[in-house]
C-alpha cells in the first residue's frame, strides 16, 4: 500500500516535471495549467503518503533517509504551490519541479524500511526540530532555483546575446525579489530549527552544543545565510552576488544534510 502510494506520487511529480519542461519550450498556457494541476495532484498524493507513513511507522516519519528526502520534496512542492497563490514567477515551476523529482529519485533509491527508533529520537522535540529545518531548507532550495534562473538571465543581458532563456525567464527584479522572499521565510525557519535543535540536544544529551560535525556544518550554513541577509540589508547587496551566495549556501546546507553525526548513523 505505502509502496503503491509512493509510486503514484512519484509518477505524478515526474509527469508534472515533464509537462513543465514541455511548457518551457512551447510557452503554451494550457500546458502550464496542466502541469500545475499535476503538481497539485502530486502534492495531495504525497500528503496522503506521509500520513500513511506516520501510521505505518508509528512515529513521525523523519528518521530515515527516505523519509527525510521525501518530506523535503513535499515541503518544496507545497512551498511552491503556496507561492503561486501569492504571486507568479514566470517559468519558476519548470525549475522547481525538476529539483523535486530529483529528490524523489533519491528517496526512491533509499530504503523505505521502517527501523526501530533510537531512544534520543523519541523525544517530542525531534520531529518538530527536523520538520522545521527541512521546511527551511525547502525554501532555501527554491531560492537556489531562483538564483540559477537569475544567473542565466543576467548572463544573457550582460553579454547582449539573447538566446533561448531571454524570453522564457522573468525579469531580474522579479527573480531578486523571489530570492529575498524565499530567504526571508527560509532563514527565520532555519533559526527556529536551530533553536529547537539546541533545546532537544540539551534534553537528550545534556548539553546544548557538542561540536559534532553536523552541528558545526549547520552553524556554517546558518552564518552564511545570516551574512547574505545582513549584506542585503546593510550594504544593499543584490542581484548576481546574492544569487551566487545563495547557490553556495544551498550547497553547504546539502552537505550539512548528509554529513554524519557522532550520535547517529544515517542522519
Amino acid at each position, binding site marked *: 500500500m505505502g509502496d503503491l502510494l509512493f509510486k503514484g506520487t512519484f509518477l505524478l511529480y515526474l509527469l508534472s516535471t515533464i509537462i513543465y519542461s514541455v511548457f518551457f519550450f512551447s510557452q503554451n498556457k494550457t500546458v502550464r495549467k496542466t502541469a500545475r494541476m499535476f503538481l497539485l495532484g502530486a502534492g495531495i498524493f504525497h500528503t496522503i503518503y506521509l500520513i500513511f507513513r506516520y501510521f505505518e511507522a508509528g512515529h513521525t516519519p523523519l528518521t530515515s533517509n527516505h523519509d527525510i528526502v521525501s518530506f523535503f520534496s513535499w515541503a518544496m512542492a507545497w512551498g511552491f504551490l503556496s507561492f503561486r497563490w501569492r504571486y507568479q514567477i514566470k517559468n519558476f515551476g519548470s525549475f522547481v519541479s525538476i529539483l523535486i523529482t530529483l529528490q524523489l529519485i533519491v528517496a526512491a533509491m533509499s530504503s523505505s524500511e521502517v527501523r526501530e527508533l533510537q531512544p534520543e529520537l523519541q523525544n517530542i522535540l525531534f520531529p518538530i526540530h527536523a520538520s522545521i529545518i527541512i521546511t527551511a531548507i525547502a525554501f532555501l532550495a527554491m531560492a537556489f532555483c531562483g538564483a540559477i534562473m537569475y544567473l542565466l538571465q543576467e548572463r544573457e543581458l550582460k553579454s*547582449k546575446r*539573447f538566446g533561448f532563456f531571454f524570453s522564457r525567464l522573468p*525579469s531580474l527584479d*522579479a527573480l531578486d525579489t523571489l530570492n529575498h522572499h524565499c530567504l526571508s521565510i527560509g532563514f527565520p525557519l532555519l533559526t527556529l530549527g536551530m533553536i529547537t535543535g539546541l533545546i532537544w540536544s540539551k534534553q537528550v544529551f545534556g548539553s546544548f552544543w557538542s561540536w559534532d560535525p553536523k552541528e558545526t556544518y549547520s552553524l556554517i550554513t546558518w552564518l552564511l545565510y545570516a551574512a547574505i541577509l545582513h549584506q542585503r540589508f546593510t550594504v544593499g547587496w543584490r*542581484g*548576481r552576488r546574492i544569487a551566487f551566495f545563495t547557490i553556495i549556501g544551498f550547497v553547504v546546507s546539502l552537505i550539512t544534510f548528509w554529513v554524519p553525526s557522532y550520535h547517529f548513523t544515517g542522519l
Partner: protein
Amino acid sequence: MLLGVNHKTAPVEIRERLAFSNDPGVPYRELKAIPGCEEFTFLSTCNRVEVLFVSSKGDETERKVRDFLFAGSMSYDEAGKYVYLYKGEEAIQHLFRVGASLDSMVVGEPQILGQLKDAYRTSSDQSCTGVILNRLLHKAFSVAKRVRTETAIGSSAVSISYAAVELAKKIFGNLKGKRAMLAGAGEMAELAAQHLLNQGIAEVVVANRTFERAVNLARCFNGKPLAFEELVPELAHVDILISSTGAPDLILHKEDVKPIMKKRRNRPLFLIDIAVPRDLDSKLNDLDNVYLYGIDDLNNVIDINKSERDKEAVRAERIVTEEVLKFMLWLGSMEVTPTIVALREQAQEICRDEISRTLANCKDLSPKDQKSIEKMASAISNKLMHHPILFLKGEDAPEDQRRKLAIFRKMFSLDSVSRQDNGESD
C-alpha cells in the same frame, strides 16, 4: 482635406514654432472664421500639427489654413516645404493611419489615439464638426481599434525605443515608479523617453549642455530640467539613462558610476547609449548591476522582432485600405443624385413587392386591369416622392445640404444595407 506637419516633414525647430498650447480655444476661433472651412478638427501633439477640414472652396481655404498654421512666421512658399496636404481618399487614409498609430514616430504607440479623441471632442464641443467629420472620426477610432485587436502591432518591439523598453522590462520587471534621464537631445532619444513614459515610467529628467533646451524638452515630457553638471550625482536617483549628446568624448566613465552604485544600494542601472560617437564608457558594463547598451546592441534586439513587425504592419495597412474604401463608398452616397436614385429604387421595390402580393390574390383580373393597377401604384409612389425630392434638390449652404442629406437618408433608412456591413461603426 487634411493639412499638417509631422516629425517626418518638419524638424523639431519648425514644429516648435507651431505649438499652440497657450489657449486651446484660439485655433478653433481662428479656424472657424476662415471662409469655406465648414467642418474641421485640429490636432496638435509633440510630433504633429494637423488640421482636418471639409471645404467646398478648396484651394482658397487651404491657403488660409496654411497661413493660420504658420501664423506669419514664414512665407507661404517656405511653409510649403514642410507641410503635406491630402485630399479626399488620401486624407481619409492618412487620418486612419494616424489614428491607428501607423504614422507615429513609434509605430504602434497608443497615445496618439487618445490625443485624436481629445481633439475630436474639443472640436465637436465647439460645434466645429458636422456630418462628415463625425462619421469619419468615429470611423478612424474604430479602425484604430481594429488594428489594435487584429494585429500585434502594438506589442512587439518595433524600434530602438521598443527594444529599450523591452530590455528595461527584463531588468526592472515593472516600469511603474522608475525614473529615466535623458542626456542630450535627438529624435531617437526623445522617442525612447516618450516610449518609456507611455509604459508608465514616473518621470523623465532632462539634462542638456544648454539649460534652455533642457527646459524646453522637459516641458515636452512634463519632466524636470537639469544642468549638465548635475548629471552624475543625479544618477543616484534615476534608473534608466538615455544618452545621446553630441559630445566628442565620453561623458560618463566607470569610475564615475562606481561610487554611485554604492549610493544606489546596488539598485540596477540601465544605461542606453545612442550617441555616435559614444557617450558612455563601454567598461561600465563590467560593473555589477549596471547594464550598458549601445545602439548596435539595441539593433540586435530589434532584428529578433523585425520580421514579425513587418508582417503586422502589412496587415494593419490592409485593414486601413479596406476601411478607407468602405468610407469612400459612404461618402459617395452622400450626394444628391445617388440619394435620389436610391430613394426611387427603394420605392420601386416596395411597389413591385406589394403589387405581386395583391395580384396573387386576384387571379381573375384581366392583363389590362393588372397594368392599370401597376400604373396606379407607381403613380402614387411618384407623387409621394415628389416633394421630398424637390426638398432634397433645393439650394442650400453645403454644410446644411449635408445635414439635410444625412437626415433624409436616415428618414428613409437608405443606409441600412451599408450599415450592416460595418456594424460597429457608430
